[in-house]
């Protein structure tokens, strides 16, 4: 699984594919205080990114991949 749901935390690992966007959206709708751990993520499909941008969950950890982190911060840290 490239995406793993804990109680209030969602873990992204490796490449998160387009299929993961829908469940992610559903999960985020249910959680008001969701946190996202991106540390192990190397790439995510923009559909997921859109969901994150819209839901604005707390990003508990940015990707260790600096390039990806820069991109994501530009989108999520507004």
């Amino acid at each position, binding site marked *: 699984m490239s995406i793993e749901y804990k109680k209030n935390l969602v873990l992204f690992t490796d490449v998160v594919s387009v299929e993961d966007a829908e469940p992610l959206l559903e999960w985020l709708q249910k959680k008001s205080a969701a946190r996202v751990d991106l540390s192990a993520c190397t*790439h995510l*499909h*923009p*559909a997921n990114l*859109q969901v994150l*941008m819209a839901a604005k969950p707390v990003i508990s950890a940015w990707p260790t991949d600096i390039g990806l982190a*820069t991109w994501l911060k*530009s*989108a999520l840290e507004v």
Partner: protein
Amino acid sequence: MTPLLEQFLSEARDFLQGIGEKLMQLENDPGNAELMTELFRFVHTLKGNSGLFEFPEMTRVLHAGEDLMDAVRHDQVKFSKELADRLLDAMDFVGLLCDEIEATGSIGATHAVDSARLAASLRELIVKVDSPAAVTAVVAAALLATLAKTHASSGEVEPLPLVDIPESVRMDAYRHACNGVALHWLDYAPEEECFFQGDDPFFQARNTPGILWGNITARQPWPILAEMDAYRCVLDFHLLTAAPREELDEYFRYMPDQVRMVSVPPLSLALPDGKHNGGPVYEDFVVHAISLLGDGRLEGLGRAARTMLDLSKPDLWLSSALRWLLLVMELEPENQDAFGALIKSLRHLVPPQWGEHQQEISGKSLAPTNGLTSAEAEAMTALITVQRNILTLPIEASWQLGRIKAAAATLSGCLKASGDLAALPGLEAATANALDEAASTPLLTWLDDKLEQTRQATPVPKIEPATLVVDSSTEAVQAVSDAEGTSKFGQRAEDNIASPKSLKVDQTKIDRLMNLIGEMVVSKNALPYLAGRAETVFGVRELSREIKAQYAVINRIAEEMQDAIMQIRMMPVSFVFQRFPRLVRDTSRKLGKEVNLVLEGEETEADKNIIESLGDPLVHIVRNSLDHGFELPEVRRAAGKPAAGTLTIRATQESDRVVIEVSDDGKGIDPTVIKQKAYEKGLIDEAALERLSDQEAVNLVFASGFSTMEVVSDLSGRGVGMDVVRTAVEKVNGTVVLESEKGKGTRLRLSLPLSMAVTNVMIVESDGQIFGIPMDSVVETVRVPRNAIRTIKSSQVTVLRGCIVPLKSVNTLLDIDAPPKANDEDELAVLVVRIGDESVGLLVDDFHETMDIILKPMTGMLAGLSTYSGSALMGDGSVLMVLNVKEIL
């Protein structure tokens, strides 16, 4: 270049030609549904073909064309001159791409922009008729698109949000740029539906070549989560890259319409940013620095700047400006204007306007260009006009001053919306004046001045009505193509006649050429006669020799010419071979056999007629081989052979003949079985049964009516197989030889002439007439003394080198009532010919030379005479009848 690609190009040219013609015809006859369907089919097929290759630019345009034609076909769009023009433009573009593919094997990514523009212009027409209201929107969109492209190619217009880029990245990019690297700002707006096409725009953006910085923005505010559609892409990507333009074009070649590229002048990156710290308070430093700069004391300036920087907090606007100043001084020491601008910017803490380094087309214009659609632009123009009308009304009462306020407020709103903030103070001053004077005149004057300025500032009158706007878009298009320079697009196909390498010629034309060269050969052959006459009749030896010398030259040229024409008719045997893989696969599967097909020498060439005549015999042979030759896998295994048999079809050229060998490693032919069968069918008598060698027996399969199969299957066994093969091959002067070894396999050898056009004949004379005998069948010519001829029963025979040769008189065979003439030594002329495996002597009166002739088959009434295989014209004008030796004997 692969053969497939070559074929595609040759076909594409045909299609383009066809499309052009059909369009012209349609212009004269727009209602012709048939023409329209045909046109659609052309475009459709061409598009389909182009999809086989990696030519997105071509496919995109053709796809748009196809959609348009489809709409026309279904009466959703009316055929118009404009439509034809655009389609022709598009086809010219495709032709241009074809040329490029032919020259370089691929399409340069630079065409992507043209391709997108053409496709858009075609698609526009589709929308047009759907709803008239949509037209304006489409025009507006097209205008905007062209404008955007003008920007992209002629420098930038809108200030790019470069400030968003972190200073360190900008400084880095600036350093790159000063080393001669071109910087590009990219706005990449993927289609909303792109996720469904399997695209990952984020991945695309992240992997952009030479990327220095990038960010992602949303196109619209996010809806509440419950209403969100995760699969509708609403993200925009913005990037700064240091990759060359070509590389970027190449990288984004599949989505040129979604990407806007703007080249970034290095200095425009020098935008100080940071905390203002209470406002501009650095006047002392500015004055000092400018005086240093004025005196040319750059070192001092540098020192001063560094000292100032050390004293200031690094996150201040001031520090940022100083860092830029130092960097620019380091990298562009001669650009003193830039230093000045940076220093002066400290006065107001407003980033320097690097505008003069950019080609601002409409920066000062009232006309809204910044981020406004042209629909909005129109609305604003209307708004301004209304304000102006209001202002022209006389002010009669003090309450009417409110009108001035309202108009001023509206105008200031317009200015803000169009980004023209510099004009705001002027407006405010004018408004104040107007209110003081209680008259609208000052404001009106200001507005008129402003409009005037705008017109001057923008050569293209953007506030004018929509028609002119459309005009400007065409100009812009022109500018694009001019600016690009490299694009040859826009030329009509006629301007640049592509010379295709291959011609498609009607076969009748080639046949005519063949006939003509035949006549040429014949009349050339008349020259030796002429030379002979010059010598014998007129006694001029010298002339005779000269004619002969001339003849030699003409002869050489004619032969070369003949050879060249033959070459045109040559085709590779692969034309026939290509059907076998499928045939073998299907047939062997049906029979439950395992057979591997090996094809060799497919590139061997022969005359078209020969190749075509090969088709059916080969199919027979292969079927026979599969049906009778190969054993079932278990039988083969039991015999110690591999379960899968091998069928080899090999073509080779041997001097002037093509040899086709079909060999299998099946069970072979058992001569005793053949003999027995032939005997049972009454094809041979008992004596022959004993006498025939195995080799001869095997060749009995060619006898008419022969079949070894007990059951007639749907594949073979009807007794027409090999007989038909032999007849078909002999028809084109070919021979068939069958060799077989029981248990090992069978080999069939077809030997065919390379070309049927020229026949080599021996000319013989009998009863004062001359006849031609094909050299293929001639074995030798001998003079036999009359006393060496014996008569056995009623037939004449002679013994040649220990072999008995039956003799037949040509006169008798042709029913001419005359005995063969003997020469002075009472010897008879015997022409020994071979029929199958037998030699027969033909008694003739005399032998003449051998000759190459163009054999014409008998036609009309004479076609039924099987005695002759044809006729030919001799050099002296006489007609030579060529005997069909097999028939007369």
